[in-house]
């Protein structure tokens, strides 16, 4: 390959380029299985939905259920908590998107768009900062306080103060009957 820059490509040049190109494509094709094997496997994906009975949860109480290895908070909100959450203008919130998997991505973070029924907040109980589990009924807003880095959420699970960038996520769920929900 010590030819001058202006020389015509030879048949040997062509073979070098073709070999290199075939090798690069082959490597890329082989790389994908090696990368994709780390994604959630079929057995992990299979555990994708659970059912939960709301009737034992008293007003003012919260229970935690596991869904896909994550805690889901089921909170029976009091009338006072609902009123507090509904009185906050969306424009004053740090994250103004509902983060509700049951609504379009652009839905606003109003209390109504965070849940189907005002008494029942059903939400993935993971702080959007670095993944800790917030403590319920704590913090300045009566909602949640994350013990790791001090993020505070209101009674609708919306971020109000601290380093977390987003409201806590609402998982896909639906009511099978007035007291039974299916999460996932």
């Amino acid at each position, binding site marked *: 390959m010590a030819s001058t820059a202006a020389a015509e490509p030879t048949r040997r040049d062509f073979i070098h380029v073709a070999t290199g190109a075939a090798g690069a494509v082959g490597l890329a094709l082989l790389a994908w299985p090696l990368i994709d094997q780390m994604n959630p496997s079929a057995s992990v994906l299979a555990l994708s939905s659970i059912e939960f009975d709301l009737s034992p949860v008293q007003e003012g109480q919260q229970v935690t259920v596991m869904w896909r290895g*994550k805690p889901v908070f089921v909170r029976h909100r009091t009338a006072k908590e609902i009123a507090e959450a509904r009185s906050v203008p969306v424009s004053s919130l740090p994250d103004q998107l509902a983060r509700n998997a049951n609504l379009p991505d652009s839905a606003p973070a109003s209390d109504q768009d965070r849940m189907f029924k005002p008494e029942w907040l059903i939400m993935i109980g993971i702080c959007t900062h670095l*993944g*800790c589990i917030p403590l319920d009924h704590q913090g300045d807003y009566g909602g949640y306080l994350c013990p790791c880095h001090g993020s505070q959420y209101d009674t609708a699970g919306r971020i109000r103060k601290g380093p977390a960038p987003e409201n806590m996520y609402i998982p896909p769920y639906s009511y099978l009957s007035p007291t039974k929900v299916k999460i996932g």
Partner: protein
Amino acid sequence: MAGQSTYVPKTGFTRWLDARLPILRFTNDTMMTFPTPRNLNFWYSFGGILTFMLGIQIVTGIVLAMHYVPNASMAFDSVENIMRDVNYGWLLRYMHSNGASFFFLAVYVHMFRGLYYGSYKAPREVLWILGVIIYVLMIATAFLGYVLPWGQMSFWAATVITNLFTSIDQILPHTGTAVTQWLWGGFAVGDPTLNRFFSLHYLLPFVIAGVVVLHIWALHVPGNNNPLGIDVKGPQDTVPFHPYYTVKDLFYLSLFVILFAIVVFYLPNALVEPDNYVPANPLVTPPEIVPEWYLLPFYAMLRSIPQKLIGVIVLFGALATLVFVPWLDTSKVRSMRFRPLAKQFFWALLLDCVLLGYLGAHRPDAVFPGTGIPMLPFARLGTAYYYAFFWVILPLLGLIETPRPVPATIATSVTGSGVEQVNAPAE
């Protein structure tokens, strides 16, 4: 200084081997006759100590892997089994867990020594950058290893650190979450995560060993820097590595190992968070999550920034900054012995890192005990100084500082005159 080989095979077998695989010649030239500046002090013994600690970690780690089970339902119990039932399991595990701390202790001394004596400057830039790569690999390995006992701290450290990648969501929506789930192999830290962390924790030390070989190779091309920071001018400035530095290194290694043994035998849990003796529980976050002591300064930087993505950038930027140090320092003089201003900023940086370490162990909303003074402003100030030292102070000092005169040769400085002839060492 990598001059001509002086190796002469003395027996028939070594002559035969030398013509086929000159491994004895290589060993002789790199570890025996290698010309080394005659003025290396105590602080230069940590390279050897680090090699020793890497060996300790690999040997104890391989043995522990014979008993450890990388499964979310069995990992914690298998570690307890190592501690209680495996013969000398307690010793091996305490050596391994405290070995990580001593490895980092040695690497911090080694790094600050390099900073003080300007060991990163031309022609040793590649040597320094290889060192930074080793340090980053050490951090990754230590983090992966910390997850394996599957206690509360293990689980939540894994959760917090992998969630750093979700900050990508703020620039590329959903990408960060996808990357994080790819790292987890699920929708949260779980069994697949533990299994792959074990695999990588076993792999990385051998990668480190490979980069260490490159690091030593890059050291042996220009030869050692020294406390005066001046170049070796001739044979009167050097002594052979063996016996002068083999013995010196061995002496300080012995002292270091005594310290290590004291901790392993008498204070084996002094550096451990008690929460890590509680099995991992994905539903309960411990009241306070802190990393091991050697990562606290970086954790303080992360927590001092109220915005998630910027916090993560500041954290990784603090590591990346080290790569650029050879070009950020504009001074012609290597050693800070002759740099009256740089020396002061250097000690301030060391204190700054200790302060950040202290602050990193406390919640961001904490106050200094007994005073009511909040810690957060200090964490921000400390973070700012860390960056300012490398990106502002080092480049400016080279322009405004008047260094003191450096000695003409190492021999002049050591003996008071340049004419003294070193006793020619026997080969």
